């Protein structure tokens, strides 16, 4: 398939009210394409790997901007950029896990325009799929990555179902760890969904990575006070420190009292199609001191039920080691 320098011809809507955007998105249905920062959009279109009749640029919608305090935490507008998140004083002070995750996305220029909503809604990075091949996720009946010669070093070690792609989002696992709520609007109104249920795997729907459907707009993300000022640990391992997606990332929120872990949410990114919650680890460390000995006692608990492909066994010890670092509290 050849590569193209130019964007394909298409229409562009630039609504300034969320109701208008919903109206346009509902009318266009599958032929419309929502654009925030656009950094996961233009590659698809330039490559002609996906098409749309019209782009719906949401950046003019003021109500989807800004970070504000609420009765129970904060609400982050869907259009808030990743750079804004890394610099926001409240997020840095109370929810530094999210600030750290946002600060490790892609590159400075991409963080300057890339939005929080876009980071959690972006499509998977499997190169076979991005190249426009007619794989399961594209509607076909074959996975090119899960074949004897398929290159699957970056792919899933858990919960693959025909498709073996992983979630590329750095902020997604952090938001699930913080028990964030996703605010979604469509023509019939607004619904609020826990971040944990926002992401969906190929076993539920192989064509989508989130519950968003044409006509839905993710307008805001709410973070409850529950984990404010908790003890956090974030680390992303990637081939390069800029641009590259995670090989494995860890986002941990812990309540530590007198050195003892009372409660925790341990999330891992890039090991399956959705952020993976390690409930077995959470249970194992509950009531234990946050130290090296507790970390070491976990062994390979996190990866013990993994199902690696030909080239990604390395993700198992990598994940186990990141879990240990999070639990002992140092790299």
């Amino acid at each position, binding site marked *: 398939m050849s590569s193209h320098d130019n964007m394909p011809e298409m229409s562009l809507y*630039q609504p300034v009210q969320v109701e208008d955007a919903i109206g346009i998105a509902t009318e266009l249905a599958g032929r419309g394409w929502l654009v925030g920062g*656009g*950094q996961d959009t233009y*590659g698809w279109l330039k490559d002609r790997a996906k098409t749309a009749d019209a782009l719906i640029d949401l950046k003019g919608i003021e109500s989807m901007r800004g970070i504000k305090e609420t009765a129970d935490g904060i609400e982050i507008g869907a259009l808030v950029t990743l750079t804004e998140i890394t610099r926001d004083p409240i997020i840095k002070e109370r929810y530094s896990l999210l600030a750290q995750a946002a600060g490790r996305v892609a*590159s*400075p*220029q991409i963080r*300057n*325009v890339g939005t929080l909503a876009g980071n959690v809604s972006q499509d998977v990075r499997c190169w076979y799929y991005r190249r426009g091949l007619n794989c399961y996720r594209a509607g076909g009946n074959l996975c090119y990555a899960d074949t004897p010669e398929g290159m699957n070093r970056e792919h899933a070690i858990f919960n693959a179902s025909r498709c073996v792609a992983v979630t590329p989002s750095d902020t997604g696992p952090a938001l699930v760890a913080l028990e964030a709520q996703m605010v979604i609007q469509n023509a019939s109104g607004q619904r609020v969904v826990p971040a944990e249920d926002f992401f969906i795997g190929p076993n539920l729907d192989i064509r989508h990575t989130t519950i968003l459907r044409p006509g839905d707009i993710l307008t805001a993300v709410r973070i409850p006070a529950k984990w404010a000022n908790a003890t956090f640990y974030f680390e992303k391992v990637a081939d390069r420190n800029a641009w590259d997606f995670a090989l494995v990332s860890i986002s941990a929120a812990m309540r530590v009292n007198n050195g003892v872990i009372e409660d925790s949410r341990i999330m891992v990114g890039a090991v399956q199609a959705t952020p993976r919650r390690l409930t077995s680890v959470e249970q194992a460390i509950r009531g234990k001191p946050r130290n090296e000995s507790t970390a070491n006692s976990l062994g390979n608990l996190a990866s013990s039920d993994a199902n690696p492909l030909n080239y990604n066994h390395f993700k198992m010890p990598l994940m186990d080691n990141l879990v240990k670092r999070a639990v002992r509290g140092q790299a």
Partner: protein
Amino acid sequence: MDVAPQETLAHTLRYKLGLTGTKLGCNRGECGACTVLADDVNIYACSTLTHEVKNRAVVTVEGLRAADGTLHPVQAAFIEELSPACGFCTAGQVMSAVALLKANPRPTREEARLAMSGNVCRCGAYDHYLNGVMRASGQLS
């Protein structure tokens, strides 16, 4: 000038306005050669629609020189430090450095390294560019 709905800023700059100082490397937001400023923030012109920035002040490398031809301090410092090798990434490196120094006039070398991390240099002249940034910020003489 007519701008098509789907037209990228890099396309408008280079092929409609003739401002070819902004380079196109990968055209996918993966190299940084097309970096320009929009309201003093560095962005990839290849991954921005022109209509997205129609209400913003866009500055390219052509807009840095003073009216009398004096180079921008970043440009002068890059020459002094022999920062460019082949030069293809230089315009983008300059724009990222200008954005950094507007937001943070005296960055540490580590802050500068992070701020410049969205610009690839195939010649590998990264440390030379970093020296240039530190010189432009008055911390290297």
